[in-house]
């Protein structure tokens, strides 16, 4: 099975008046066909920036300053804006933006907004478009009469289903979901995760699932990529992360700080300190100032190394594991 996405040494900086904020600072990862990659990290670690970067639409003043993003065999970094619009965005890769459910236009019906997106990208008549919309509605578990409703008539969970359907109906190879369940209630959250899992099984689409919550990731991601301060700390398969304690101290601490409902603990763990300022990140390992097991070698930046098949870690302590 080939890789549908290959990202190499991607650097995406925000070029502010104070200097470059190195939000994504040289990351490598790949995504296999049909796989779901979970991207986890604290706020400001660059996880959303990666998602936006993969559509080549970073929020200004963000700019891709280096690296390549190969999606389905084409490097999209050198492409023109016109080519991106015509062939890449939504046809090959689409995204459910953070809070997208609140970005539906209140003045048009859901059906009309969806129709517009479809017809922008593909030549089709009304009846054809309606049929596609209905098909995707049933895939995400929405009744077809929703097309005539306005966004304010829908609940949060329904709106989230609408934007997921909109990300899928042009049959992209890759879908990026950025915190799709964060603002939702627990039960609705579980329902949306079920929808995501069901779509993965039925459509075989590759996904990148971005969230700050390791517990959510346990439900959907085949592999987990943990980010810290613009760098990849660890990439490991789901089972390894949740069963056999991961290797990077940051992943370990993050997992320990994730509360479990069915485990009795007296004290929850936390990570002292705060993530570094990315205008001027610390030399060497970026986690070192907060790391409880830091050593002399950590003054040098650790490379991301495959310590066993499918398990990559950027930590000097994990070299001989």
């Amino acid at each position, binding site marked *: 099975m080939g890789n549908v996405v290959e990202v190499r040494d991607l650097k995406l900086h925000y070029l502010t008046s104070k200097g470059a904020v190195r939000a994504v600072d040289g990351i490598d990862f790949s995504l296999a066909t049909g796989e779901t990659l979970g991207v986890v990290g604290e706020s400001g670690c660059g996880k959303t920036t990666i998602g936006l970067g993969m559509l080549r639409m970073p929020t200004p003043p963000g700019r891709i300053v280096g690296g390549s993003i190969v999606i389905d065999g084409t490097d999209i970094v050198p492409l023109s804006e016109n080519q991106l619009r015509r062939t890449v965005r939504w046809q090959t890769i689409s995204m459910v933006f953070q809070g997208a459910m609140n970005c539906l236009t209140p003045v048009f019906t859901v059906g009309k907004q969806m129709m517009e997106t479809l017809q922008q990208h593909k030549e089709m008549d009304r009846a054809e478009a309606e049929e596609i919309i209905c098909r995707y509605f049933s895939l995400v578990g929405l009744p077809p009469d929703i097309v005539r409703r306005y966004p304010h008539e829908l609940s949060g969970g329904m709106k989230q289903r609408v934007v997921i359907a909109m990300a899928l109906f042009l049959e992209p190879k890759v879908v990026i979901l950025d915190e799709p369940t964060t603002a939702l209630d627990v039960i609705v959250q579980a329902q949306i995760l*079920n929808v995501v899992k069901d779509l993965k099984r039925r459509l075989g689409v590759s996904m990148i699932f971005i969230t700050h919550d390791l517990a959510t990731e346990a439900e959907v991601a085949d592999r987990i990529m943990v980010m810290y301060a613009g760098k990849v700390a660890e990439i490991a398969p789901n089972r390894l992360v*949740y069963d056999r304690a991961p290797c990077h101290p940051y992943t370990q601490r993050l997992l320990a700080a994730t509360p479990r409902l069915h485990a009795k603990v007296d004290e929850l763990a936390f990570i002292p300190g*705060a993530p570094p300022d990315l205008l001027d990140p610390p030399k060497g390992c970026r986690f070192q100032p907060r790391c409880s097991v830091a050593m002399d070698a950590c003054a040098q930046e650790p490379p991301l190394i495959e310590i066993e098949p499918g398990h990559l870690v950027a930590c000097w302590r994990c070299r001989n594991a």
Partner: protein
Amino acid sequence: MPEPSATNEVILQAKDLKKWFPVRRRLRQAIKGERRWVRAVDGVSFSVRRGEIFGLIGESGCGKTTTGKLVMKLLDPTSGRLDFEGADATGLDKEAVIAYRRKVQMIFQDPYASMNPRFKIRDVLEEPLLIHGIGKSRQEREDLVTQALAAVKLTPVSDFMGRFPHMLSGGQRQRAATARTLILSPDLLVADEPVSMIDLSTRAEILAMMKELQRQFGLTYLYITHDLSTARYFTDRIAVMYLGRIVELGSPDDVVDHPVHPYTRALIAAVCEPVSGQVDVIKQLPIKGEIPSAADIPPGCRFHPRCVFATKECSELPEPELETVGEGHQAACRRWKEI
């Protein structure tokens, strides 16, 4: 669980508390004299003991924040009664409310919005002292501010006093917000989702600090949240709310490990756990449909349209009240023995 710090003295008691908000009427309805209400809080009774952490849990729209606002006297109840330290606190006049708020303080959800951006941290903390006329001289107030900041471990204190809120991280702001409430030495703190906007890695740190302060100053908390996982760790008792009513009440162990009410069961089944073996497993959720509007509450048991165990009785008989299902464990379900 830590040693039970709660006493038997009831500090706050709510009896059949209701808050209904009127819905704007159309002309035709107004002529017919029809009135519609959003029943945000619809008959809530509970008592909080001095020194305990009482958790109010539920999904958005269940009335947990409205209940918190009623306790804070930011809203007046439509009906029902609120007792604080044995005295009626329902219909207080303006001056009595100010005196009441000296003893009952609130930590808000959003630490970015709950502080005046033009105030330095020193001013943010000094403001409640000025309002309540505490501290005769500037120096005296400054000392109190210093103590409060030290209590929440914003040290070195002199460093933080002169900073503006935007210069603090989310966690630090929530510490400052906590210091602002502590400065009045309150008895009861209403904490409405105090950690939901804080990064996961520091969330536990804030909760640990709040727990430490509780032990140190003998505080009582009303902890309002949607997050069962932190509530289990943080609280002494949990009340689960659904559509304006408490449906289950008990110790965190009882409620989480042996839930009785079908809604609590669904809520617990839906929580994500950071454990393996869940990928691609479609979760069976024992609940139907979506939450109804609080303006249109179903008759009978208000949970019956979504309940997988509901019978005809559940929709026809009057609403079930909380009944004892175990020691210190109550649930509002008619069929709890059978299901």
